[in-house]
């Protein structure tokens, strides 16, 4: 009996069964398939989206496209003005922001503190910036949650990251402290390079990038003065490229110019912190594991659905065999039904994902502690998942149909066990 004929008869039977099936039963099966599809795509998509959100925040709020930073042996970049000139001359470069960075301490409530009181201090990275240049690169001004952003003429005024304040991070672990009773307008003491300055908190920064939320931002000219960097050698240069510019190619140009001898030249991907890279790898494994479980659940679901369907139709399967319909054609009819349910479920799932969930998550990201999670569902990967789901469904539909078709014809007709 030819494969083509069995396929034709199987299709004939499947279309009639689907057409005449109860609307509610079909609806329920398709609903389960839609949920299964969403489980496959959305769960891993949110996991990936969580990391994508974190990567995007790290890229947009801290490193920009290329990050040039001091070598491990120095705390500044040699010949920074020359490197900045080189960068400005590159046609792909849109903006740059040079930063001074130096570890220091900050202290609050020092005027009211009794001798026996524990000092209200915290360690912080003091970052000197050109406020306008930094805002062009990282949009830092938009992260001021309270107070105001810095202006180039601000002196003895600082922006403080939220994680340096107890009201935003009420967790104290050994070796890590935050300032208490500090808000906009509070005077604090900043100690850097052995020099202590009293400064006023002009604004509080709220960001999900730790390097921003744990930094104390000061206008660059004041930091330069405090740390004695009259040579204008900075610690970091964040570089934003024009739209469409190739990051790797610009990095290569900088390496060809020998800048790597004076500084670390990294793309925003190279500069990702190790914990982020570890989380990406972990979530990739987790996403695959969840997808695999989703596939198994989908297979079992369709197996049960087809098995119950075939079992309740056992008599009719017996009749079909009795009047001479080949068992393979009957199996084909169940395979077609499984594929129908999988494709319809996936089709509706695709519409839900691309026309509802992706835009929804883009508009209202999930507020995770370290990122604004979006839903990442690349079309090709999603279509691969559809393919996997259809294949798993096909197998899960075939097995129960085969089990019932193999039973004795007369036993099936008479409903005997």
């Amino acid at each position, binding site marked *: *009996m*030819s494969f083509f*004929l069995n396929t*034709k*008869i199987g299709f*004939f*039977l499947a279309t*009639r*069964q689907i*057409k*005449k*099936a109860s609307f509610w039963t079909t609806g329920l099966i398709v609903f389960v398939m839609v949920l299964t599809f969403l489980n496959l795509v959305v769960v891993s998509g949110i996991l990936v989206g969580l990391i994508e959100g974190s990567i995007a925040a790290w890229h947009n709020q801290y490193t920009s496209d290329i990050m040039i930073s001091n070598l491990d042996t120095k705390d500044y970049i040699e010949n920074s003005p020359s490197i900045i000139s080189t960068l400005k001359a590159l046609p792909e470069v849109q903006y740059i922001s040079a930063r001074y960075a130096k570890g220091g301490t900050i202290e609050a409530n020092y005027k009211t503190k009794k001798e026996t009181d524990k000092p209200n201090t915290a360690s912080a990275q003091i970052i000197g910036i050109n406020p306008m240049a930094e805002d062009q690169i990282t949009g830092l001004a938009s992260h001021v949650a309270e107070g105001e952003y810095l202006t180039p003429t601000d002196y003895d005024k600082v922006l403080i990251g939220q994680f340096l304040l107890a009201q935003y991070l009420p967790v104290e672990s050994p070796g890590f402290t935050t300032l208490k009773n500090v808000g906009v307008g509070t005077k604090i003491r900043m100690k850097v390079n052995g020099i202590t300055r009293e400064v006023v908190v002009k604004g509080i920064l709220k960001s999900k990038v730790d390097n921003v939320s744990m930094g104390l931002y000061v206008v660059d000219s004041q930091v330069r003065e405090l740390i004695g960097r009259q040579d204008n050698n900075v610690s970091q240069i964040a570089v934003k490229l024009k739209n469409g510019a190739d990051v790797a190619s610009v990095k290569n140009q900088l390496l060809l110019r020998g800048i790597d001898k004076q500084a670390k030249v990294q793309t925003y991907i190279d500069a990702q912190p190790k914990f982020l890279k570890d989380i990406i790898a972990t979530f990739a494994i987790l996403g695959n594991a969840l997808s695999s479980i989703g596939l198994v659940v989908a297979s079992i679901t369709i197996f049960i659905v087809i098995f119950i369907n075939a079992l309740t139709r056992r008599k*009719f399967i017996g*009749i*079909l*065999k*009795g*009047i*001479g*319909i*080949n*068992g393979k*054609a009957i199996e084909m009819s169940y395979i077609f039904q499984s594929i129908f349910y999988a494709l319809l479920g996936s089709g509706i799932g695709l519409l839900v994902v691309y026309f509802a969930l992706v835009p929804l998550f883009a508009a209202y990201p999930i507020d995770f502690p370290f990122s604004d999670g979006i839903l990442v569902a690349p079309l090709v990967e999603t279509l691969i998942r559809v393919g996997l789901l259809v294949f798993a469904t096909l197998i899960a539909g075939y097995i129960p149909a085969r089990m019932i078709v193999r039973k*004795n*014809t*007369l036993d099936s*007709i008479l409903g005997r066990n």
Partner: protein
Amino acid sequence: MIIVKNLIKSFKDGQTETKVIKGIDLKVENGQFIAIMGRSGAGKSTLLYQMSLLDEPTSGEIIIDGKEAHTMTQDQKTQFRLLNCGYVFQDYALLPELTSLENVVLPLLMQKMDKKVAYAKAKEALEKIKLGHRLKNIPSQLSGGEQQRVSIARAIANHPKILFADEPTANLDNESSKIVMKFFLQLHKEGQTIIMVTHEEQYAKMAEKVIKIDDGKIVSIHSSTN
């Protein structure tokens, strides 16, 4: 011609084995109309199921037109049934989601028949049993008598060598039963071999030969007086 030799069928339930057919020998000539009668549990339907290759005998031989049917594989039996046998069941055994026409055309399509020819033949068979106006109705929209007639149309659409009927009138009222039997007689006149199981004497008498079975054995074979 169907030859049945020393046919035995027994059922096992745990350690208990029940013999339902206890060594039957039978010969049915082409074109004969045979009625198998007997009380409930005598083994008449079981005999029909073995002869029609719907079930596996425990032992014995079934030879149909020289072919040793008892040695065939399941797939070969399915194919043999498709090409040579027609079935009419007590409960009509129609597929509920198919229309009358689709129920009849399905075995024809399975025979690799051209779609147009198959539909034409199916329509012709339904018109022959006066159901030309019910082609697009599904079984639940038909009366019991009409469903049985669709079942007969399905069985005879491709002119099978043998028509097997298991209590075809058992679920029908008198009027519908008479229509069905009248149709069987017409088929018989056209040369159709028919093997029918019935417990209704009035319909058994319409057959050419009546075989009475009791306790798994043939107790009598009578030629009908009709």
